[in-house]
C-alpha cells in the first residue's frame, strides 16, 4: 500500500498541508489580536475617491468580476467580495452601479450578495434589480457588450477584477476614452501589463487576494493574509535549500565528465559515485516524482459478471 504514495508525489502534498495548517493557525491566532498591520495598497485606497467622483459627476460605477468558464470559483468570489464593499459605498452615496457578469452562476451569486449589501445598509429601495446583469458567456460578445455599456452609460469609475484575458485592454481603453477612473486586477499575469498601461490603479498578483482583508479587517481574513506571508517565507527557504543542495550535489559533476572518463579508459574514475544530472538531484526527485511504470502489484481479478459495462455518453 505504501508504494502507492510514489504515484502521488507525497512531498508536494506535505508542503500543501503544511501551508494549509499555517493559514488555519494564523486565522485562529488573529482572533485575539487587534490592529494587525497591512501595508498600504494604493488601488484599494482609491475606491472611496473613485466612487465619490462618480457621485459628483452623476454617472454610474461599473464593475466586472472577470471571465471564468467554470462555475463560481475562488477568484470570482474574491472579486465579488471587493465589489460588495464598493457597492456598500455606492449605496450610501445613492450612486447607481452596474455589475456585468460573464457567467450565469456568477450572476446569481453577485445578485444575491449585492442585494444583501443594500439590505444591510437599510437602503433596499435604492437597489435596482437590473444593476447586476448577465451579458454573455462568449468572450468578445461580453467585451463588446460591456464596452457598449461603458460608452452609453458614460461610467465614471470602473473596477475590473478577477480573470481577464484578451478583452482586458478593450475594456480598459474604452473606459479610458470616457475618462473613467479605473482600478483593475487580473489573476492572469499576461494581462497585468495591459492594465498597468491603461488603468489608474492596478493590484498586482496577490494584492488582489489581500484586498478583502485590507478593506474589511475581519480577523479571519487578516489572519489568513499573515499565514500566506509565512507560506511565502517557507517557499523562499525551500528555494534557498534547493539551490544549496543542488549546488553541492552537482559540484564538479556532469555527464560530459563521465563520457570523457569512459573514452580515456579511466575505469577508476568510473567506479566513483556517478556525478549527478539535474534530474538526479534529491530536490528534483522529491518534487518531480516519476510514476513507476514497471511496478507490478498483485491484485485479485474481477469475475466476468463483476466487470464494469461500457458507459454511455452523448454525441459531440
Amino acid at each position, binding site marked *: 500500500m505504501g508504494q502507492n504514495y510514489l504515484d502521488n508525489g507525497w512531498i508536494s502534498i506535505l508542503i500543501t498541508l503544511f501551508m494549509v495548517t499555517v493559514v488555519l493557525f494564523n486565522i485562529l491566532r488573529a482572533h485575539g489580536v487587534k490592529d494587525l498591520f497591512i501595508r498600504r495598497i494604493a488601488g484599494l485606497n482609491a475606491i472611496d475617491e473613485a466612487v465619490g467622483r462618480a457621485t459628483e459627476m452623476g454617472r454610474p460605477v461599473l464593475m466586472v468580476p472577470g471571465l471564468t468558464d*467554470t462555475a463560481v470559483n475562488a477568484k470570482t468570489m474574491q472579486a465579488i467580495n471587493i465589489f460588495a464593499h464598493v457597492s456598500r459605498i455606492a449605496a450610501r452615496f445613492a450612486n447607481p452601479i452596474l455589475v456585468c457578469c460573464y457567467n450565469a452562476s456568477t450572476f446569481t451569486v453577485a445578485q444575491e450578495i449585492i442585494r444583501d449589501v443594500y439590505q444591510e445598509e437599510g437602503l433596499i429601495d435604492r437597489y435596482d434589480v437590473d444593476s447586476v446583469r448577465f451579458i454573455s458567456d462568449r*468572450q*468578445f460578445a461580453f467585451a463588446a457588450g460591456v464596452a457598449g455599456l461603458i460608452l452609453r452609460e458614460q461610467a465614471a469609475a470602473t473596477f475590473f477584477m478577477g*480573470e481577464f484575458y*484578451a478583452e482586458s485592454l478593450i475594456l480598459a481603453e474604452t473606459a479610458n476614452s470616457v475618462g473613467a477612473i479605473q482600478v483593475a486586477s487580473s489573476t492572469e499575469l*499576461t494581462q497585468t501589463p495591459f492594465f498597468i498601461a491603461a488603468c489608474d490603479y492596478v493590484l498586482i498578483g496577490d494584492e488582489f487576494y489581500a484586498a478583502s482583508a485590507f478593506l474589511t479587517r475581519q480577523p479571519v481574513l487578516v489572519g489568513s493574509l499573515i499565514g500566506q506571508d509565512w507560506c511565502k517565507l517557507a517557499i523562499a527557504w525551500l528555494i534557498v535549500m534547493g539551490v544549496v543542495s543542488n549546488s553541492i550535489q552537482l559540484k564538479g559533476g556532469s555527464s560530459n565528465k563521465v563520457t570523457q572518463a569512459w573514452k580515456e579508459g579511466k575505469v577508476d574514475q568510473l567506479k566513483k559515485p556517478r556525478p549527478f544530472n539535474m534530474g538526479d538531484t534529491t530536490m528534483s526527485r522529491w518534487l518531480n516524482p516519476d510514476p513507476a511504470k514497471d511496478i507490478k502489484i498483485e491484485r485479485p481479478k474481477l469475475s466476468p459478471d463483476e466487470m464494469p459495462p461500457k*458507459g454511455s455518453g452523448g454525441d*459531440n
Partner: protein
Amino acid sequence: MAITDPAANKSLGEKLQSVPKPVLYLVLFMLAAIPLFFPVKLPNKPIDASVEMFTNVMALPEGSTVLVESDWTNSTRGESMGEMEALLRILMRKKVKFVVYTIADPQAPQVSRDTIRKIADEEAKAGRYRYKPFEDYLVLGYYPNGEGTASAINNKFVSIVSGKKDWPENSAPRDVSLSPVLKGIKSVADFKYLIVVTASSTTNTVLERITKVPMMFMVTGVMVPETTTYYASGQIKGFCGGVKGVYDLETLMENGLNVEGPNKIVSEKSTEVIPGFPGMQNTGKGMAYYPSLHFALFLLILAVVTGNVGMFLAKRKGA
C-alpha cells in the same frame, strides 16, 4: 474678442505627445495590411523552445498517436490557426495519428475540424496521403468541465471517450472506441505527447492535473512569458508562441535543423541533423503575418519614441 485655436498654441513637444488616435490607428491599419498583399520572406532565428518542439515532433515514429487539446477559436486564428496548421503538416507527413478534444470553447471542435480538413486537402493535392476522419484522426468534441475532464484524462482516459461518437468520411457517426486511432490506447500514458494549442488559461488546468504524459504547448504571443517559466523548469518539453513561434516552425520545416546550406539553422542543445520537408508547402500564416508583425512593432516603437521626445521637449520648454 477673437477666439484663439488652442491647438495653434501647442508647442512641438505637446503636439508630439497628443497625436490623435484615429491617425495612429489609420497608420497601423495600413502598415499591417499592405504586407499581406506583398508577402516577403524575412530572416529568422528560431528560439530554443521552438527548436525543441520541432525536434520532439519530428522524432515521433510513424503510426504513433498524439493527443491534441485544441482550445482556440477564430478570434485568435492569426496565431493559433498558424500553429495548428504547422503542427498538422508535420503530423500528417510523419503519418502520426492524433486525437483532438477541447475543454475551452464549444466552437473549438468545429474550427479544428475545418483546419484539419484544409490541411488534409492540401496534402492530398500535393500527391501525398490524405488523412481520413475516424481512420487517421478523431475529434472527440467539447467537454464543459475543464478541470474535471483534465483529472479524468489523467486518472481514467477511457472514461472520457466512452460513448463518444465521431463521423467517418461520408458515413454516419460511430463510437470512437471502434476507431483504429484509439487502438492500444488504454490510458493517457499511451500517447506520445499531449500538445495543447490554446489562447486561454487551459495550460494551467492541464499542467496541474495531467502528469502521466509529456506535454508541449502552442500558445499566443501574450502567453509566452508565463509559458517560458514552465519550459525553463522542464515541465513542458517545448513550446511555440505567437506569430514568431509559427514562423519558427515554418522556417525549421523549410530549412531543417543543423542541415548544411545557406540558411543553416544551428541548435545549441543538439547536433542531430533533422532534414525538414524541403520542396513541400511549409509556409503559411507565419510567413504571411510576420512582415505585418514587423511593421506593427516598428510603429509601436516609433510611437513610444515620439511620445517620449515630445515629453522631453515639453519639459525643456517648461523648465
